[in-house]
Every structure is written in C-alpha cells, then in structure tokens.
C-alpha cells in the first residue's frame, strides 16, 4: 500500500516538535451525530464487503496525509471526521456506487444551500 505524503519528511518534520493534545480527550466519542453516522456507514459497508478495508485505509490515508501536510504548514487542518467524510464520498465515487453529480443533487434536495452561503 502506498500513501501519498505521510512519510514526506519535509512536510511532516515541523510536527516532530509539536506537543501531543493529551488533554483534549473528551469522554464524548462523537461530537455530533453526523460524525457517528459517517463513521458507521463506512464500517458497515466494509463489514458487508461493499468496500475492502485496505482500499478504505488507502483512501482515508490520503485525506489524512493532506490534513497532516496542512498542519505541518501551520494551517488549520480539517477535522478528523471531515477527513473521514471526504474519503467516504471519494471511495464511493471511485467504486462507482455514486457520482459527484448525484451527491450534489441529493445534497440540494436535502436542503443544502451550498458552502458559499451564510445563513443568518
């Protein structure tokens, strides 16, 4: 299995001097219900053989690598479950289960106003 960027010394090295977020360890396992749902969807699809776990790990690792590189550049990375959701959509599109077009159409049908809008 190959990962893009995780072992890239240049991108990762600033992290070597970062302290660990040991205290940031809430008892609450999922901060929001969507996190739990996105997590469980992938675990269930893997259990049922719809996606192979190593394929998922490869796909998710690419999202984690992107976030890791962003953090190494001093940017604020996406949250862990936002990375998970990005990877979930990507793997299901890659496997032909859905398409970007279908995902967008369904989001708008479900009430999305798009990420560029601000609700007041």
């Amino acid at each position, binding site marked *: 299995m190959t990962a893009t960027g995780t072992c890239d010394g240049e991108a990762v090295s600033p992290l070597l001097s970062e302290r660990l977020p040991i205290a940031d360890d809430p008892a609450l396992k999922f901060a929001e219900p969507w996190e739990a749902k996105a997590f469980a969807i992938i675990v269930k699809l893997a259990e*049922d053989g719809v996606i192979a776990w190593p394929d998922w790990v490869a796909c998710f690792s690419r999202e984690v690598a992107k976030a890791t590189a962003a953090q*190494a550049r001093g940017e604020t990375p996406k949250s862990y479950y936002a990375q998970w959701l990005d990877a979930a959509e990507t793997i299901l599109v890659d496997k032909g289960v859905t398409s970007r077009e279908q995902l967008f159409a369904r989001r708008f049908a479900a009430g999305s106003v798009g990420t560029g809008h601000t609700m007041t």
Partner: protein
Amino acid sequence: MATTKPAPAESETAIRVRALESILVEKGLIDPKAIDALVDTFEHKVGPRNGAKVVAKAWVDPAYKQRLLTDATAAIKELGYSGMQGEDMLVVENTDTVHNVIVCTLCSCYPWPTLGLPPVWYKSAPYRARAVNDPRGVLKEFGTILPDDVEVRVWDTTAELRYLVLPQRPAGTEKLDEDALAALVTRDSMIGVTVL
C-alpha cells in the same frame, strides 16, 4: 426553555452525510437501523474495559496468556470481542527489557473491539509523526520514563493487523482477583504510552 428555542439549523456537513446515506439506502447497500445499531455499539458497548478483561485474564491464567500471545484474534474472541476490523490482532507483551507502543502512522487504525474508539491524541498528526521518530519523547509527555536499558518497540498498525499491548502486572497485586486486576488496567497502558 426547550419548547421556545428554535431547532438549530442542520449543518451543511450533516446534510452531506444525510444525502450520502439516502443514496446508499436507496441502492439497498445499507439499512438505517443497522447503522444506528453500529453507532450504539461504538458509543456504549465497546471500550477499553474489554481490553482490560483480556489483560487481567492473561495475568491470572498462563494458558490463556500463551494463547493470547500466539493467536490473539482467537484468544480475544474467546471473551466475545471480535469483528469491526479487529479480526487480525497481535498482542505484544511488555517485559522488564521490552516496552511496546502502538501507533497508526497512516491514519488511525486501532483495535476497536478491545479498546473502543481512539483518543484524540492517538489520531493527531504529532503523535503519528513522533511515535516512530521519538518514542521516548512521546512517552515522557505521558509521564512515562523508562530505564535506558529497556528496548522500546513501536508497532505501526496496518489495514490488516492491529496491536494491543499486554502491560506488566503491577507489583503487589498477587492477592487481587481477575475483576480487581481488570479495574487497574488503563486504556493508555494498552496503547503502551503508560505503564501500570
């Protein structure tokens, strides 16, 4: 009060997940009830208490410990903990000369059936980067300082294999029974960042 407070707007991210779920349900690939049951399992049924029971049993039952170290997957399943990507397990034993630490450098693979969901720091970029490069520095942040002659082994989890650390039984616990021993075993000791 709750009756006068408007319901919070559903976030764009929550809508994205709902859209994804509805497509998968429509295609017959997931059952919403099964998803809810799985969430319930992760929130309420799995956690480090499972791993602690495995460790305590290994401490009091040499034959079980032998099975645990030779075929961890089967030995852990004996106690009813299996599935959920915890199928292929390897238990690594701490001794007077070897201390083990687990990490997943690629993402956050973790032995869910025995430890539940990983803590925030386990998933963090600094832990993933530093556990391999500077394990003693990482251990020190957890207050764990090992003698220089103890070898520190770092086990990088893969998609196929997950690890659990078998901590050393604390001294002075000879009279404790299995349940009392299990109560002493912490999550962090089974990740290997602390000792008991």
